[in-house]
């Protein structure tokens, strides 16, 4: 590693923050601030909740086949399962999966001995876990967004607020880690892509998710204390929250995925990423174009027709294309082996590009894609009430979120040695990545096509087959989640080197697998974005 002669660091980057010890037992885990342990819990819980969410969405998908109360679920239950599943997909599965990876990896990448605010990071995790459990339990006992069981709905709303607060607090800790605990020499242009993507993620989430928190508060205040004549009405609740799972906002949950792919591609191509500044700007641009807190069609009539919305819809594909071009260039220039992180990463990138391309026509009012499912009379199979959410956005949301999950799966296998201390099975990795990516395509594309049903009767006629394909897609994604979880839990080579890829570029590959408490004994100042490559070249 490139080093300065005079400035060797033997102290924690922040002298006031003591490095936590690795916990032992359940009590130790509950009280720990060790970022590796916290990240493992984030990952395990998000995979578990992801499985539950995908099963819920799959069961909901079965509903329209029977139609109404004659289906698998009653109309009321189907709606509750739908709203819970749609909100849980980003908030209980994809976002926490990526947060979990970041909690393990980002402090290592920036050369920090700990995550910033370790106790706050622990509080964020447990707040999210408890709130997520409560959110699912509340749905099971008659709650959920827009349900008619008063107390259970209140619990759903409060727990949903807890979920968001947990995610925001966790992202705040990661943001602060990157900004303040970087090792000397590592300015912001030198931080690894994943760490940079978490900076962008935290900033954008902090810019938009508090608005969702305000929406929830308004619904809760009216539902619990008010007369439930407007915001708290059963029929209105979901419409006030659904903006978070529609474009452009849904894209912000995929920002960390870009960082994962960028780091994995550069490492496994054994190449320095060219045009690094441009790539970082593209990640930031993607985040900025995903800001969607203003596009609340419930409150702002014509929000989807505004020039800002149309502009975002048209432009969000551009940064993705820039990134994709950069990754392909690296892969072509380097000596790439088609390992799980590369395959899953490129699949995720392609999925996101596809989703961004599908986002373009939604901005065009003349295409009539804004109609809610219930108004698509030409599709008898898709009847379960979605209360105003266009079927097109259901497809787009699934595609974006499951593509991001594919990158997350790739990240688990890329940093598997840091997470579990073992090199994870390549076979299982490829299977998991493939299943989740196919799931993303199948769960998303059919609904995107059905969005055009008012324009093409052939699509309306094929609605049964398309709905069936979406259910298969959800099942495949659930299968991928199970395979990934099994790979994490399974046995493997316990004697894993610090850098099992033998081409690591950033500092996480310098420390042991899994990292010892405190991460780094000593660390020298870095002089480039790829300090480990510097060392190899010097040697």
């Amino acid at each position: 590693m490139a080093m300065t002669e005079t400035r060797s660091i033997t102290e924690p980057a922040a002298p006031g923050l003591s490095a936590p010890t690795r916990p032992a037992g359940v009590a130790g885990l509950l009280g720990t601030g060790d970022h590796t342990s916290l990240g493992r819990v984030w990952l395990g819980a998000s995979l578990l909740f992801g499985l539950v969410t995908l099963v819920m969405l799959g069961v909901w998908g079965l509903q329209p086949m029977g139609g109404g109360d004659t289906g698998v679920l009653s109309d009321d239950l189907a709606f509750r399962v739908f709203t819970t599943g749609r909100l849980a997909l980003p908030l209980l599965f994809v976002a926490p999966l990526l947060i979990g990876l970041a909690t393990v990896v980002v402090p290592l990448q920036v050369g920090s001995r700990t995550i910033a605010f370790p106790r706050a990071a622990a509080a964020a995790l447990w707040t999210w876990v408890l709130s997520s459990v409560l959110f699912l339990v509340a749905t099971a006992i008659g709650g959920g967004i827009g349900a008619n069981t008063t107390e259970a709905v209140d619990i759903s709303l409060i727990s949903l607020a807890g979920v968001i607060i947990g995610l925001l607090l966790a992202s705040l800790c990661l943001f602060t880690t990157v900004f303040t605990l970087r090792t000397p020499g590592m300015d912001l242009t030198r931080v690894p892509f994943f760490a940079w993507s978490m900076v962008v993620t935290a900033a954008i989430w902090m810019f938009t998710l508090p608005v969702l928190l305000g929406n929830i508060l308004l619904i809760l205040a009216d539902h619990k204390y008010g007369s439930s004549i407007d915001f708290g009405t059963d029929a209105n609740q979901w419409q006030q929250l659904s903006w978070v799972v529609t474009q452009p906002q849904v894209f912000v949950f995929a920002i960390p995925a870009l960082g994962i792919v960028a780091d994995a591609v550069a490492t496994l191509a054994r190449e320095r990423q060219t045009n690094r500044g441009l790539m970082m700007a593209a990640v930031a641009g993607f985040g900025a174009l995903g800001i969607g807190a203003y596009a609340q069609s419930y409150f702002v009539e014509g929000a989807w027709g505004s020039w800002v919305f149309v502009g975002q819809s048209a432009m969000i594909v551009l940064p993705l294309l820039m990134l994709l071009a950069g990754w392909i260039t690296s892969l072509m220039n380097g000596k790439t082996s088609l390992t799980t992180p590369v395959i899953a990463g490129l699949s995720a990138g392609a999925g996101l590009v596809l989703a961004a391309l599908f986002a373009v026509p939604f901005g065009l009012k003349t295409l009539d894609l804004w109609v809610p499912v219930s108004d698509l009379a030409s599709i008898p199979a898709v009847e379960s009430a979605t209360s105003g959410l266009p079927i097109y956005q259901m497809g787009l949301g699934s595609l974006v979120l499951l593509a991001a999950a594919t990158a997350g799966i790739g990240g688990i296998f890329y940093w598997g040695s840091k997470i579990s201390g073992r090199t994870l099975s390549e076979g299982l990795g490829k299977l998991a990545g493939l299943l989740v990516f196919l799931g993303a395509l199948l769960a998303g594309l059919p609904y995107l096509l059905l969005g055009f049903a008012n324009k093409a009767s052939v699509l309306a006629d094929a609605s049964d087959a398309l709905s069936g394909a979406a259910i298969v897609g959800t099942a495949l994604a659930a299968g991928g989640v199970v395979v990934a979880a099994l790979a994490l839990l399974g046995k493997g080579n316990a004697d894993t080197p610090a850098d099992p890829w033998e081409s690591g570029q950033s500092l996480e590959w310098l420390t042991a697998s899994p990292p010892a408490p405190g991460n780094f004994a000593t660390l020298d100042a870095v002089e480039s974005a790829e300090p480990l490559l510097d060392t190899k070249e010097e040697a």
Partner: protein
Amino acid sequence: MAAVAELNPATAPPAPITRPRVVMMGTALASGGTLMFFAGLLAIYLSQRAAVVSTGSDWLPEGVAIPLLQANIGFATLALSSVTMAWAVNAIANNDRRNAYLAIGTTLLLGVAYLNLMNYFYVQMKWDITTSSPAVIFYAITTSHIVMVVVAMIFLGLMGFRALGGQFTSRQHDGISAAALFWHSTVAIYAIIWFAIYVTK
């Protein structure tokens, strides 16, 4: 001569690494998030009010009036607390602990005064939350701000106790500065609420 040798750059050890401003950075981001929380709610309030007013109807129900006097006093109280907060930061930055304790105590006292005032304000206004949706948004915004003031007071109180414990010095007083940043955010948000809700009604 020994002193000269110690100052010789050729023999002096490298400068200690400065403590990163962890608490300040975290607080700045949290303050930004809080600002967005209120921005979202205020946007709903203002858009709903504009929609109602544009139809020729009254925004506030008959018999309900938002008293401006208490709102103005609240604004003055919080503005003054911003001054005392700045006084606390300045005092701790100069190692003037007596003035720092006095300023922190005064700031907390002004916070309590504001909470008391808001209680009186609600009693005077007599606006039942169950009567209309404007009441729901109004109480969602104003009670959220009260919660924010309470959080700011707890934050400042904790940092005040840390100062009493001798943790902060003129060279390192991030905790107090961070509490001050959050406090100023609280006051700034009240200023926006004061103008958007109380003054323009």
